[in-house]
């Protein structure tokens, strides 16, 4: 980008139209501007800056009160009191990117009507006014070619250049200019925007994230559930198999003469009944009368079931016990007192008999059979 022409109209000491042609040769590309104190060097410099960037270069997003205060200091005093007067700055720029050469004319104009400034700005490209998006694009392009921070490297006021580098903001100015010069501010902008985006999406996505998390948990648990279901089925099959085996073993057991618990209990009860009868028989076979000792018992005999012990033979047992006692016993004495005494005594005899058979149950039964 090269500046070809600068026109000042009612700016500072430059009354009415003042045009400066600063076309340069390829081998002479530095322009020095000199003049006496108060001649308008600084104004000239400020005018270029303001024309190019408007309020932005003074640190304002849009033209406002503070910006117009600066404009107020920039324009010629005549403009301030003459409502019909205007002030403007016009710069002609030449862009040559090798692909094509374009001429741009930037025109920035101010009017002060009733103490209020208005700003007008337009850009002509190769003679034609550009408007809307195209103008925005051009401004954007201009800002990328010479960012305002960089401007101070290319156009500087000998009186204030020291302030730019060595003043209180010197380091900051230099750093910003350096970052912009190498395009590194792009990376800072990227970092800022990543932070902003993450902050924004964090809030937005937390519900969705917890949904995803919950769904993942669901999926995991479902897998576990299915595994457990498989295990259950396997175990159920084992149970079925065991039951079949058990039934077949039971059948074999019964077939080979085995008896069940219920049968065994019943038979045991039967044996007890028969043993009681045998015990009574053994006691009756001994003609000795029952002694006092025989009646000493740990119970009163009320636990005995007359039907179970004597059953259908009750009358015979009663007759034999009365006959053995040699006394007249009424029914209350016969049962349970005498019957129980005979069972207790007979049991002792039976136990003695059992011991006599050396614990051989079969032999014991044979002996009993012979004896009774």
């Amino acid at each position, binding site marked *: 980008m090269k500046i070809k022409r600068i026109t000042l109209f009612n700016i500072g000491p430059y009354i009415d139209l003042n045009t400066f042609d600063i076309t340069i040769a390829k081998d002479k590309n530095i322009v020095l501007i000199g003049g006496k104190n108060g001649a308008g060097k600084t104004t000239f410099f400020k005018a270029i800056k303001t024309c190019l960037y408007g309020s*932005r270069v003074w640190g304002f*997003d*849009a033209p406002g009160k503070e910006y117009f205060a600066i404009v107020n200091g920039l324009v010629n005093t005549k403009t301030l009191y003459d409502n019909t007067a205007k002030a403007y700055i016009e710069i002609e720029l030449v862009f*040559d*990117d*090798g*692909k094509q050469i374009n001429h741009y004319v930037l025109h920035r104009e101010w009017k002060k009507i009733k103490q209020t400034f208005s700003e007008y700005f337009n850009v002509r490209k190769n003679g034609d006014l550009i408007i809307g998006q195209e103008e*925005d694009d051009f*401004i*954007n392009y201009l*800002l*990328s070619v010479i*960012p305002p921070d960089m401007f101070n490297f290319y156009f500087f006021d000998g009186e204030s250049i020291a302030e730019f580098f060595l003043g209180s903001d010197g380091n900051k100015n230099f750093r910003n200019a350096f970052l912009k010069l*190498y*395009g590194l*501010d*792009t*990376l800072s*902008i*990227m970092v800022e*925007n990543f932070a*902003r*985006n993450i902050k*924004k999406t964090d809030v937005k996505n937390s519900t969705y994230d917890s949904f*995803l998390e919950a769904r993942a948990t669901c999926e995991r648990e479902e897998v576990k559930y299915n595994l457990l279901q498989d295990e259950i089925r396997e175990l159920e099959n084992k149970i079925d198999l065991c039951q079949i085996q058990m039934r077949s073993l039971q059948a074999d057991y019964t077939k080979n003469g085995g008896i069940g618990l219920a049968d065994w209990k019943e038979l045991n009860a039967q044996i007890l009944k028969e043993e009681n009868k045998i015990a009574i028989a053994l006691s009756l076979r001994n003609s000795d009368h029952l002694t006092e000792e025989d009646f000493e018992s740990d119970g009163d005999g009320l636990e005995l079931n007359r039907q179970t012990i004597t059953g259908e033979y009750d009358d015979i047992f009663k007759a034999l016990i009365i006959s053995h006692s040699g006394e007249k016993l009424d029914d209350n004495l016969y049962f349970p007192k005498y019957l129980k005494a005979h069972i207790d005594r007979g049991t002792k005899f039976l136990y003695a008999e059992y011991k006599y058979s050396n614990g051989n149950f079969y032999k014991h039964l044979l002996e009993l059979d012979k004896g009774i």
Partner: protein
Amino acid sequence: MKYLFSLYQGVDLGEEQSVVGQIDKDKIPVTGNSRFGCWCCTIVKEDKSLQRFIDGGATELIPLREFRNWLVSIRQNPEFRDSKRRNGKVYQKANGEYGFGPFKMSARQEILKRLLRLQKDTGFTLITNEELKMIDTLWDLEGDLSRRKLVDLYYDVFGKRLVWDEYKEPLYDAEIIRTLQVAAEDSEIPFELITKLIVMINSNKYVAKSSKLKKEFDRLLSEEWIHYDAVKEGLKDED
């Protein structure tokens, strides 16, 4: 006119119907249904009319046919084609393959290199400087951070610089680009996304309305190709 028709003469020339052949086949001694368009068109498998010229003695066209046939051969090759569209959309075919987007940057460079060589070897003007300017602008916008791929390629082939060569400054030094690339790979961020963001920020950072940059930034971050796997995951049971 006679010359024009003579160009089409031949037996069974092509796959597409020629209007002339259909309407006037009795009156005009022209046969064949040949297609006769852009020399590098890859719509037909074999350019029979080009073949016909070569058969007719135009041997200088042989390298052109070879270039065209090479183009046909890489057209359906996933190595040369992007798996996403220019707008970041991704689509997957029923067989799981990704649908093709534009040619990859590397493929485009290869194609241009071969085309420029062909131009140099044959002497035909196959591509104009105006077209090269357009391509150069497009490559800058599509993430060539060096901004010099096209001009350097031209120099490699022709040994002389394009007019605008000296104005093409790299956006960043090769070292910075490499550092960025390594950092992106370490963080498992596609470098392509970073280059897209850089190009976008550069063209928007001086816009007074900062909302445009933010909007563009968020749009690039939410392009489908970046989230395709996550989107597929999200849609898994919503068929």
